[in-house]
């Protein structure tokens, strides 16, 4: 049984990491990062089967691909706090000579990252390749991916979504961060996409919703259900309903903090709403 208190404490600490990282360099993407904190913590702490250490091929373990690379702060924080690299290195986020580039990359050799992302819409294709390599290798571990909902406006996703079901890639769980926000406003204002569920279903995917996408128990339950649906000839899509900016009241329910850093006062306020649990880096 997972210890929910431990996971909650870690999530609170991850939120602190996110806003401190972004505040320090006055750049980065806190909104989507905060909205996905519970998901990343659940994934790396409970859901994924991971080997000790890190190798690029990732044979014999579950893999995760972040497609919407701009939420790098939450990815970096959870990777560091899951033992991939020293937590102190979070201090170097977006600074010159850092392995923690603005958007994640393999180029700097940061453990935990197996593909660069930032230019949107490419992650599902990569996840598909990795999933098919697993089948060739008779490796029955799973491939997870995360995508923004706004990111689905990129056409390459739909090439990949079509391919995944046509080729019965059923060792893949693609999660859509359904916060309904993108840089310029709500997804419905910028480019309405209609029912994402209906679209995935029409393309032959198994789709399930996690309505409380910022609740760890709901995430664990939903993702375990998703896992149970793999291996049935169809790819699995999880619609994770999250709140952008979750955990810091003035950042929630708005696109305003998609790519904006808090000032000193806002940082102080955000940290006070998320008291230190495991210790700051």
């Amino acid at each position, binding site marked *: 049984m997972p210890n929910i208190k431990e996971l909650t404490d870690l999530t609170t600490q991850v939120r602190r990491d996110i806003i401190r990282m972004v505040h320090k360099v006055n750049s980065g993407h806190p909104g989507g990062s905060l909205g996905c904190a519970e998901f990343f913590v659940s994934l790396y702490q409970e859901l994924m089967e991971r080997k000790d250490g890190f190798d690029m091929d990732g044979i014999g373990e579950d893999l995760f691909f972040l497609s919407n690379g701009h939420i790098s702060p939450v990815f970096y924080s959870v990777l560091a706090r899951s033992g991939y690299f020293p937590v102190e290195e979070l201090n170097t986020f977006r600074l010159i000579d850092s392995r923690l580039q603005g958007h994640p990359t393999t180029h700097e050799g940061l453990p935990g990252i197996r593909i660069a992302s930032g230019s949107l819409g490419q992650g599902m294709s990569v996840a598909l390749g*990795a999933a098919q390599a697993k089948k060739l290798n008779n490796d029955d571990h799973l491939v997870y991916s995360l995508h923004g909902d706004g990111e689905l406006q990129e056409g390459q996703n739909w090439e990949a979504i079509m391919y995944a079901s046509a080729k019965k890639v059923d060792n893949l769980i693609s999660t859509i961060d359904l916060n309904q926000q993108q840089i310029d406003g709500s997804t419905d204002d910028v480019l309405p996409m209609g029912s994402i569920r209906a679209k995935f279903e029409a393309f032959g995917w198994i789709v399930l919703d996690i309505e409380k996408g910022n609740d760890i128990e709901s995430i664990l339950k939903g993702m375990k259900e998703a896992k149970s649906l793999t291996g049935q000839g169809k790819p699995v899509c999880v619609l994770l309903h999250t709140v952008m900016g979750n955990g810091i009241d003035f950042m929630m329910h708005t696109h305003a903090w998609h790519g904006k850093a808090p000032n000193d006062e806002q940082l102080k306020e955000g940290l006070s709403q998320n008291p230190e649990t495991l210790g700051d880096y």
Partner: protein
Amino acid sequence: MKTYTYTEKKDTRSGFGAGLTELGRTNPNVVALCADLIGSLKMDQFIEENPERFFQIGIAEANMMGIAAGLTIGGKIPFTGTFANFSTGRVYDQIRQSIAYSGKNVKICASHAGLTLGEDGATHQILEDIGLMKMLPGMVVINPCDYNQTKAATIAIADYDGPVYLRFGRPSVPIFTPADQKFEIGKAIKFTEGSDVTIVATGHLVWEALEASKALHEAGISAEVINIHTIKPLDEKAILDSVAKTRCIVTAEEHNHLGGLGESVARVLAQHNPTPQEFIATNDTFGESGTPAQLMDKYGLNSEAIQNAVKKILKRK
């Protein structure tokens, strides 16, 4: 003067197909992907022998590049196949982020490069692909000259760990290199010794350069012909050693003069030994419909054009 002859013409893309087939038998990690052009890329035999190692992607080149990148995360060596235009310009960002920047071991194999799609016209031709690919950090760019060399290059790049762009054509061209050649990435091949002028050529223009050197020899001009099958990394030493002797150079390629082999050579010369240079290449233009031979004539990509460029450069020495 050493002369080169041929007994058979064959398309370079068939060299790719033959090389891929051999890799299918010798390297279990090699996998192939295609975007609905199996016949054009001559992948049939590989697929017949290794159906489980082939991925038909459909008409979705961006997805193909991403899937190829993903397959490397699992130790596979993916060879992607489609026309050169759809292998480069159409998917530049996918190659840039998911393959080159991510340092993935993907072999981007591009057929019908240059003007060789002939009658299909400019939408299906590409004269910018060498430039696009050579500008990507870490990308190796190879443009072999005949069937045998394309086969050898295909086999050789499987042993190189990193992204490679392999460019070849559609029409049948003379086979004039040995079947048992060793292909070394980045190592130019000198075909003829000469003292008056250096001709460096790549791809289908190498044969035209050899034809030109034969005609020039009869006119009393001694040309040194070098096959630059690898445009990046460029064999700078081979070029500099040759121009130290000849003191002038003609570059020849089926590509825009902007961004191609000629510009790469010009940079090396400007830095190390400024040398008069003439460019056999297209003059910043799109192609058009016509037979490949007609187009090569129209855009001045043949032996005669090389001879004229040599005569011009000799006056500038």
